[in-house]
């Protein structure tokens, strides 16, 4: 086989994704209190692969190769350390006997068991006793195979902050004795909501961050979608709300390429070139939204996905079904009465009803005093109702609040028209 063909055989992010899978499986085998051992075994495995595959000896089944090496390293570790008492109660007994040790390890590396382990890991990382930002950091570290520097870069923060978040999560796992398990049925919906919220945060971090590097933002969005997909595929967790969230992510992601111009400035929905929207993702968005209809439930994700679907279906900004969007925002506000939803509802009312109504609604919102988009929107409504002096004041405040250069650029353009 041609060498270049060999290179292409390795899928994007193979190491990253296999690392996430293997850490989940090994943590299940060794117990979550041995998470660091699991991470060490995986790091060793990848290192071994890197050193031998570099010489053009990529195996036919790269993932299978990695799993086999990780299995052997885990078996070696268990034989050597004999730490069975510290290992989770589920496997300690089976691992003590040489007769069942190896079959037990092999069993856990079967495809459906890998998915099961990942699912358990998601519930552990998003345990309600772990602070939300630590949940997201631990998820990225264990399930997505991102390093602390990579997470810090994506979150526009320093490595120390991320290390602390991961550390706090690991401390909670120890102090709360969090195990790798799928919650029992009556607890499941609530625990699932915590997982979904974490996925939603992860996605938004990628989608709304104004990071100059596109790739990192897209990586976060992709990871959130990958994990959400896993939830929709597993019989225990395939609730309509998971499909609704995945649908929302598909719609949002379909616009990623249309959101930035060549200078990486943000292009508002209004001015986006709709022919750049990625149709296959829009189609998937509709498919998941359809699938989310039964059994009947209305989650905030359903409403947000429905709003995104109306934007996706609109041929132009002006021909958008603003009346329905405004109505959906009203319903969303019932479920989630927070100032950000109120702001979006007000903005929709500008097109569904009129600009004055939007301005009135916006001015009533409390709690967004430091939100640049809030100030920019009020400026916009003053601008649209021909009160340019007022508009200038609000745009000016917005500029002072945003650290994003592309947003500042956008606002300066607006101000030059006032």
């Amino acid at each position, binding site marked *: 086989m041609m*060498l*270049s063909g*060999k*290179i292409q055989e*390795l899928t994007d*992010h*193979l*190491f*990253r994704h*296999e*690392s996430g899978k293997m850490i989940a499986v090994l943590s299940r085998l060794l117990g979550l209190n041995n998470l660091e051992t699991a991470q060490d075994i995986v790091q060793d495995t*990848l*290192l071994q*692969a*890197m*050193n*031998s*595959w*570099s*010489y*053009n*000896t*990529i195996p036919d089944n790269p993932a299978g190769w990695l799993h086999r090496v990780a299995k052997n390293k885990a078996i070696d570790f268990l034989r050597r350390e004999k730490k069975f008492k510290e290992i989770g109660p589920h496997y300690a007994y089976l691992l003590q006997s040489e007769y069942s040790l190896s079959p037990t390890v092999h069993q856990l590396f079967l495809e459906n068991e890998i998915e099961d382990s990942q699912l358990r890991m998601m519930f552990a990382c998003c345990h309600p006793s772990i602070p939300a930002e630590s949940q997201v950091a631990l998820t990225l570290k264990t399930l997505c*195979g*991102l*390093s602390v*520097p*990579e997470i810090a870069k994506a979150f526009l923060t320093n490595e120390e902050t991320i290390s602390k978040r991961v550390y706090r999560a690991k401390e909670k796992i120890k102090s709360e004795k969090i195990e790798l398990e799928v919650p029992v049925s009556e607890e499941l919906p609530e625990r699932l909501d915590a997982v979904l919220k974490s996925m939603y945060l992860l996605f938004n971090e990628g989608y709304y961050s104004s990071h100059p590097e596109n790739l990192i933002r897209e990586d976060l969005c992709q990871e959130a979608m990958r994990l959400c997909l896993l939830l929709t595929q597993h019989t225990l967790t395939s609730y309509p709300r998971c499909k609704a969230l995945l649908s929302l992510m598909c719609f949002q992601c379909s616009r990623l390429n249309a959101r930035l111009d060549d200078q990486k400035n943000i292009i508002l929905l209004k001015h986006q070139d709709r022919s750049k929207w990625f149709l296959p993702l829009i189609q998937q968005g509709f498919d998941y939204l359809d699938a989310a209809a039964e059994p009947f439930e209305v989650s905030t994700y359903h409403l947000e996905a429905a709003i995104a679907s109306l934007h996706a279906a609109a041929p132009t900004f002006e021909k958008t079904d603003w009346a329905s969007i405004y109505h959906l925002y009203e319903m969303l506000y019932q479920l989630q009465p927070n100032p950000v939803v109120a702001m979006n509802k007000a903005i929709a009312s500008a097109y569904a009803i009129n600009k004055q109504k939007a301005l009135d609604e916006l001015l009533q919102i409390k709690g967004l005093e430091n939100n640049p988009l809030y100030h920019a929107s009020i400026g916009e409504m003053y601008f649209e109702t021909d009160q340019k002096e007022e508009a200038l004041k609000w745009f000016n405040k917005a500029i002072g609040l945003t650290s994003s250069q592309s947003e500042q650029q956008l606002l300066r353009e607006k101000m030059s028209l006032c």
Partner: protein
Amino acid sequence: MLIFQGTGVPTGSPEEMQIHMGKWMAWIDKLAKADQYAGGEPLLPGGKLVSGAGGKNVTDGPYTEGKEIVGGYFIINAKDMAEAVEIAKECPDYELGGSTQVRQVMKMDM
């Protein structure tokens, strides 16, 4: 022959490791296309050191410093030492503190 030393100890993320591996593959690919690559193998860490009369001393090792450990070798075709050195300069491991020995294989005329 290119002998690679002090390689294989990056502390990078899975993604960085995969990218680094990709650089090696791309390098081999490039050499192969130019008919300069004749083969190569990675070496596993560890091994034994045999010495003394009759090889009576067998120890674990070679225990040399990390930067001296041989990680693998390439056999390449180069017209002279200068070209071989130019090829060796393309090795992706220098950023990780690696080094490369460039040695000429002696051809015995029969």
